[in-house]
């Protein structure tokens, strides 16, 4: 099958959805002629023009609030927040307005909007251009949170997100944009709230998100040589979370390591670990182990940054601890 990078897969999802539905449009900083800070929206303006590939001033609250107002009145915006770190500027429009509007109005509003944002460390971009803040959004009723790791998932999940009638936070890890994978040319959807087993195994379950899926797979490959069989589960959607797939894996392996690049304390893994403890305690042969970033801002120096980002070695060490 044809291979695409994650970047190109997202671009194709946007293009195909914009062709299908004239109410779908893209809005954000430098998404037009510049093609987006990470090149994700490249070329869209040539096909759809500036009316549907809308360059905004540097004005994140208005980007999100405008999208919300447009969504509530019949359009299906896909907004881009260049770096996930910038989302702080617009939080009120996300968590107090978009997330709650339907509930506050007694179910009488429909908010079909997607907010895409790039997360992740690895380029010495330091504390305000590198964070993984998906747990913030998991905590807000009314939002859905999507975090793909492959090109196939990215395209199918984005199409589902665009067609969803709720505000969706679509998190893209900026250092996996170039990873290629098989992507069908036609339109397809990957359902929200459905995890995917990226590698089957029997001895231990590793629940990993976004860039960490690749490190978990690397760890699994490494440990296979030692006779440890690792199952890697990618939730793909963090809200709603697919408890069932995770628990089914735990029932098989009886041991779990949860891995994410976000800060470990109160990170997405805290919820996943607690859910496993509540729902599948009797199946566990060892305490759930978490691997995440330390409780610090993201540092600048490559040496410090590498110490910060969870490594394959740390994942291997954690797996060995739980299988010991």
């Amino acid at each position: 099958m044809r291979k695409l990078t994650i970047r190109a897969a997202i671009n194709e999802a946007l293009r195909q959805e914009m062709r299908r539905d004239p109410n779908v449009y893209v809005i954000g900083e430098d998404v037009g002629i510049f093609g987006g800070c990470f090149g994700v929206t490249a070329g869209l303006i040539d096909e759809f023009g500036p009316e549907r590939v809308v360059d905004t001033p540097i004005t994140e609250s208005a980007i999100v609030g405008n999208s919300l107002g447009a969504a509530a009145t019949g359009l299906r915006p896909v907004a881009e927040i260049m770096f996930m770190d910038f989302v702080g500027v617009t939080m009120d429009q996300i968590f107090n307005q978009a997330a709650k509007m339907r509930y506050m109005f007694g179910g009488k509003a429909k908010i079909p909007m997607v907010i895409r944002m790039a997360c992740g460390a690895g380029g010495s971009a330091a504390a305000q251009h590198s964070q993984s803040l998906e747990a913030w959004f998991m905590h807000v009723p009314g939002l859905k949170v999507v975090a793909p790791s492959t090109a196939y998932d990215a395209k199918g999940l984005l199409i589902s997100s665009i067609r969803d009638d709720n505000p969706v936070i679509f998190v893209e890890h900026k250092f996996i944009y170039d990873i290629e994978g098989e992507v069908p040319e036609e339109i397809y959807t990957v359902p929200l709230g459905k995890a995917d087993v990226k590698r089957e195994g029997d001895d231990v379950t590793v629940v990993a998100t976004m860039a960490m899926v690749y490190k978990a797979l690397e760890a699994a490959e490494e440990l296979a040589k030692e006779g440890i069989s690792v199952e890697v589960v990618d939730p793909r959607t963090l809200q709603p979370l697919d408890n069932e797939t995770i628990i089914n894996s735990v029932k098989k392996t009886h041991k779990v390591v949860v891995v994410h690049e976000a800060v470990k304390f109160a990170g997405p893994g805290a919820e996943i670990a607690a859910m496993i403890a509540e729902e599948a305690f009797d199946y566990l042969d060892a305490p759930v182990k978490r691997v995440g970033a330390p409780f610090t801002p993201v540092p600048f120096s490559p040496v410090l940054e590498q110490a910060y980002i969870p490594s394959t070695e740390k994942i291997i060490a954690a797996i060995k601890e739980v299988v010991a």
Partner: protein
Amino acid sequence: MAVEKEKLQWMYKNMLTIRNFEEKVAELFAAGKCYGFVHLYVGEEAVATGVCANLRKEDYITSTHRGHGHLISKGGDLKLMMAELFGRRTGYCKGKGGSMHIADVELGILGANGIVGGGFPIAVGAGFTAKYKGTDHVVACFFGDGASNQGTFHEALNMASIWKLPVIFVNENNLYGISLSQKKSMNVPDVAARAAAYNIPGLVVDGNDVLAVYEAVQEAVKRARSGEGPTLIECKTYRYRGHFEGDPTVYRSDEEVEEWRKKDPIPRFEATLSQMGIMTEEQMEKIRSEVSEMIEEAVKFAEESPWPSPEEVLEDVYA
């Protein structure tokens, strides 16, 4: 300015409806029948009335924490509003929103808002839809003097201006942001002066003169419908009650309140109507009793409405 007789009569009835509704809510709140925070619009009736007299059903408004007057003026159902304040299942939001979140998207009411300045970008988004779809719908974005100090004010006015979106930014300057006098919160006497920064028209009108508001907004709506972009209209007005019910209002003098009582928009409009020969005292009296009957019916509806069942807490989070 020639305003049709029916419109003038509607304005009068609408202002009275707001006044009676709010005074009734104050009474019910004191009696413990409605809950949470309520911010009443008493004294500011001419603004919402003068603005919404220019709007069609398919036009939009965004409202504020002090929203009852805006909702009534845009056609909000008094019974559903009152039931919401009572926390009942039959309320506008099935008892999930309360005073600060009443909305009726079908009527173009994109919600009251508990966050000061929260409505600006949403209004701009509704204006964006109008432009995107090529309709001539307009949006009235209500906000207070205090809200004009929020960052969203700047972002929204800038965006509406560069894209010439059909939004009328209606400032209700009641001189205070809770307790802080406007004199201490901004270094310009008029909120409207801020329009210059966005190269859009900025006007100051007497917000207690419903016809002055109507006329200014009429021009702004015409401009918006014809694709010429937004306007900022500052309506100087005053809230006779506190910021919220229970506010001790230590930050202003009785004399100041008395001064503004003399400028009460309702008696002023009554005088105008009778001078213009539009309505006699008897006709006004008839409307007064009609309005109080409507309010009583709304209260009765709310009181007799069922409570939501506890399991409804889980509904309506997601579509």
